[in-house]
């Protein structure tokens, strides 16, 4: 259990460093991947609604430190997305390999749209435009491609000793 507690912040930090140093170079049609949203989605897939909401909140609040949008905005959106993914994924026990990838795509697109919507509500106009659809699609594709690696990392971080030996 102690082991797990050290592994989760480690994975969180790894995603943050990758997001802030590597992924800001990747731009297609002016949009790039969103590693922190990916973390929320994947945690929902692997660990259910509880892990999805917690990972989403933590990933969002850490990312918010480096954005100019109001603090807590990404935290709110990501924890909702993580929770929703966890609830949907809970019904599927042994899924085919492509189901997590498809889930990541759909959840990432939905997450970006929700983000723009909530941002508009808290007084950040200019986000809901045609460009938003392009951004959401690009993020969805990037995140879906990165999903298998992220799944493995998150599974490694939250697996409890009981499960590891079972």
């Amino acid at each position, binding site marked *: 259990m102690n082991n797990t507690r050290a592994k989760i912040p480690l994975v969180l930090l790894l995603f943050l460093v990758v997001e802030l140093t590597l992924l800001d170079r990747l731009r297609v049609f002016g949009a790039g991947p969103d590693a922190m949203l990916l973390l929320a989605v994947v945690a929902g897939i692997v660990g259910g609604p509880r892990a999805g909401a917690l990972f989403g909140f933590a990933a969002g609040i850490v990312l918010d430190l480096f954005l100019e949008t109001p*603090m807590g905005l990404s935290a709110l959106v990501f924890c909702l997305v993580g929770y929703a993914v966890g609830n949907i994924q809970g019904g599927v026990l042994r899924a085919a390999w492509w189901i997590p990838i498809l889930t990541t795509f759909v959840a990432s697109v939905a997450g970006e749209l929700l983000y723009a919507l909530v941002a508009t509500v808290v007084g950040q106009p200019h986000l809901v435009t045609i460009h938003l659809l392009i951004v959401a699609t690009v993020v969805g594709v990037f995140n879906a491609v990165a999903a298998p690696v992220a799944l493995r990392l998150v599974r490694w971080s939250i697996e409890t000793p009981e499960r590891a030996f079972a």
Partner: protein
Amino acid sequence: MAVYRRSTRHRFLLVLLVLTSITVITVDVRGGGGGAMESVRRAARDAFAPVQSVADDVINPVSDFFGGLFRYGHIKAENSRLRRQLAEARGRADASANNDRELQKLLALQNLNFAGNIPTVAARVVATSPSNFQLTVEIDKGLPAGIQKGMPVVTGAGLVGRVLSVSQERATVLLLTDPSFNVGVRLSGSGDVGVARGNGTRQPLPVDLIDVGSKVAGGEVVVTSGLQGSVFPPDIPVGKVRSTKVQPGSLQRDLTIDPIVDLTRLDFVKVLLWQPKAVLP
């Protein structure tokens, strides 16, 4: 029953997290950026600055190496083009040095301010925004260099944007293509003034309030107007006219400009240590 209780607990956790987020958002928005959230943000950015520098030192040579491999021909052609342009520019600089001296003398006589006289701080662009919704870049100079919120950022060619937030090690610059960016501009030919606003990355900037009757040439340079209370000093080049037309029945001319600076390939920028005279609301 157990399943039911578990899902209620999860819902409770979600509600708790959502309420926490909303509280944080409210505090940040109400605090107007000056409060506790701002200092937490600054601390986080300063703490991350060394990590970013190390990562850049590792990643840049690798990406440059591969970039150089795959684009060798392009880089060679670009190099010879740049050499030619440099030679031309040197010639022109020599010629204009004399004019500059005369202008300075005249300006000094008239007690006028000129953008060329404002002290600047050179900085390197170390990162672009991690967000898909804000067009910003991070530069490697902060408060100790004298940078303050709202200062204009330029390159040798023209306007880049303005400083959005500053910490000890870093400053965040809002690019002029960001949809929340506005700048008062003046047409260099006719002298008519208008307002240019950002419209997203690689998109031309629409200019509002230009009179139907004003004469505009394609490719004409548009500079900051620097009118009283403006957030930018006058005469910084902003862009070149891309298209112009008058819709029948319209009260203003449809005008779009392309930024003069290539904002997708920023490397070094200069922060003008200049703040508007009027107090911003």
